[in-house]
């Protein structure tokens, strides 16, 4: 875990001077950050610092909020995502998202939840096989294989969250955005999600927002610290937690404020 720029010569996502607003509130100021491919990038910072907004800019979910907009450049494999003519709907199939609270579709069975992205997007193929593979990747297959027709509400919170991860994986994204995926879960379920993140980074580029600094230290390769809508510091996770360059980062990771 050295400097991420040497670790991953080809960054997956390059953000350059990104600004975001909710109506007149300017919530992200000139954020410039690279997210390396096939690794985990943690985004940390106190509440209201803009980390969730930043994450939601990456798959253009931010702009769905009425009055919200973003400016700057945002490149995925070199392609500018904020440019005119880019289909945000299509982009979201390449950049999946997992939310803070598990949000399986309550009217669909466990199987249908995983297959929902395929069905709603009209993607063909062997859904049976894809669902099984995604549930295995989400480390949920063994727990649900006998009740695929059951309701997702019969699952525990942690299982529901892994179901949501499986659902996101089914449309074969390249990037997985996770917005505090474990904050609504108990420690055991959290540990499972963290193990899962370790597995998933072999195939996916992951950006995870977290309030939990131990979690960031455990799961991520790179860490970015946001404060008041600005990126204060980004670097290898080890360096951010042991030898930050900026005083404010040190204050935050050592728990002096938050």
């Amino acid at each position, binding site marked *: 875990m050295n400097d991420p720029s040497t670790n991953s010569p080809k960054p997956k996502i390059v953000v350059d001077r990104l600004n975001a607003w909710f109506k007149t509130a300017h919530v992200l100021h000139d954020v410039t950050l690279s997210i390396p491919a096939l690794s985990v990038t943690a985004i940390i910072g106190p509440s209201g610092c803009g980390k969730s907004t930043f994450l939601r800019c990456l798959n253009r979910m931010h702009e769905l909020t009425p009055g919200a907009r973003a400016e700057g450049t945002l490149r995925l494999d070199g392609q500018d995502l904020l440019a005119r003519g880019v289909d945000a*709907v299509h*982009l979201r199939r390449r950049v999946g998202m997992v*939310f803070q609270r598990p*949000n399986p*579709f*309550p009217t669909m069975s466990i199987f249908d939840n995983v297959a929902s*992205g395929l069905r*709603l997007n009209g993607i063909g193929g062997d859904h049976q096989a894809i669902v099984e593979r995604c549930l295995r990747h989400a480390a949920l297959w063994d727990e649900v294989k006998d009740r695929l027709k059951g309701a997702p509400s019969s699952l525990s919170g942690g299982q529901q969250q892994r179901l949501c991860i499986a*659902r996101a994986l089914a449309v074969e994204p390249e990037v997985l955005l996770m917005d505090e995926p474990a904050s609504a879960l108990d420690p055991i379920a959290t540990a499972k999600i963290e193990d899962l993140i370790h597995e998933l980074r072999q195939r996916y580029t992951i950006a995870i927002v977290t309030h939990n600094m131990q979690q960031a230290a455990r799961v991520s390769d790179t860490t970015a610290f946001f404060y008041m809508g600005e990126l204060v510091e980004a670097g290898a996770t080890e360096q951010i937690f042991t030898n930050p360059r900026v005083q404010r980062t040190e204050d935050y990771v050592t728990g002096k404020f938050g």
Partner: protein
Amino acid sequence: MMRLHLRNAVNVAATIACGATVLIAMAPLASVLWLVVSRGAAGLSLDFFTHLPTPVGEPGGGVGNAIAGTAYLVGLACLFGLPVGIGAGVYLAERGDGRLGHAIRFTAEVLSGVPSIVIGIVAYGLLVVPMRRFSALAGGIALAILMVPMLARTTEELVRLVPRSLREASLALGVHEWKTSLSVVLRTALGGIVTAVLLAISRAAGETAPLLFTALNNQYWNAKPDQPTASLTVQIYNYAISPYEDWHQKAWTAALVLLLLVGSLNLAARLFTRGRLRDAR
């Protein structure tokens, strides 16, 4: 000790008073049921459901065409009213915060307060006069106009109850917004919407005023949308205002049939809602 006795006495008195108001509130319902059942049950027979009406003095006969006519009119009303009402409701919930949304919501509120006889006159002016005939179509559209505002507001509320996180989950999968609205949001709200539709249908089935000068009435079976059609409510009205004793009997029996029809729809709606709540738990 005295205060305790007093308090208990007040408690008993208050309980009795509350119970009495419940009885008073239920009295009209009970008397309606009792009157309709006791007077109407005498005329019930299989023929009543399947046969055409007979002229005065001729025994037998039924209101089969009126039952079918009510079903036909309500069916036409659903054909026009459900897509418009539910569609408008989804629009209001998803995009209704703009000026157009407020205008639609205001219109729906005003429309739901318009007396049904006025809606009958409007359908008369819009359809019956230009077509130069009373028709099932005009009756169906009059009923549809009644259903639309009710459905739109209920659908809006039900769709707004669907958690935002489900919309976002779908959008984050790269699903188009229209598809998200239909396949995720509307589908999640569907149970409630089915209940709303059943209630709207039972209300439409019980309407007389909008049908009096649109669908009019018909002594025979009718399946053509451009012809006058019988309906239970108008048939009851005609029987009830007639001077003939055996027609009065038929009015009571037809009222009982209508009550059973509307009541069972209401009951179905309630059972459906309760079943869904149990699932959700």
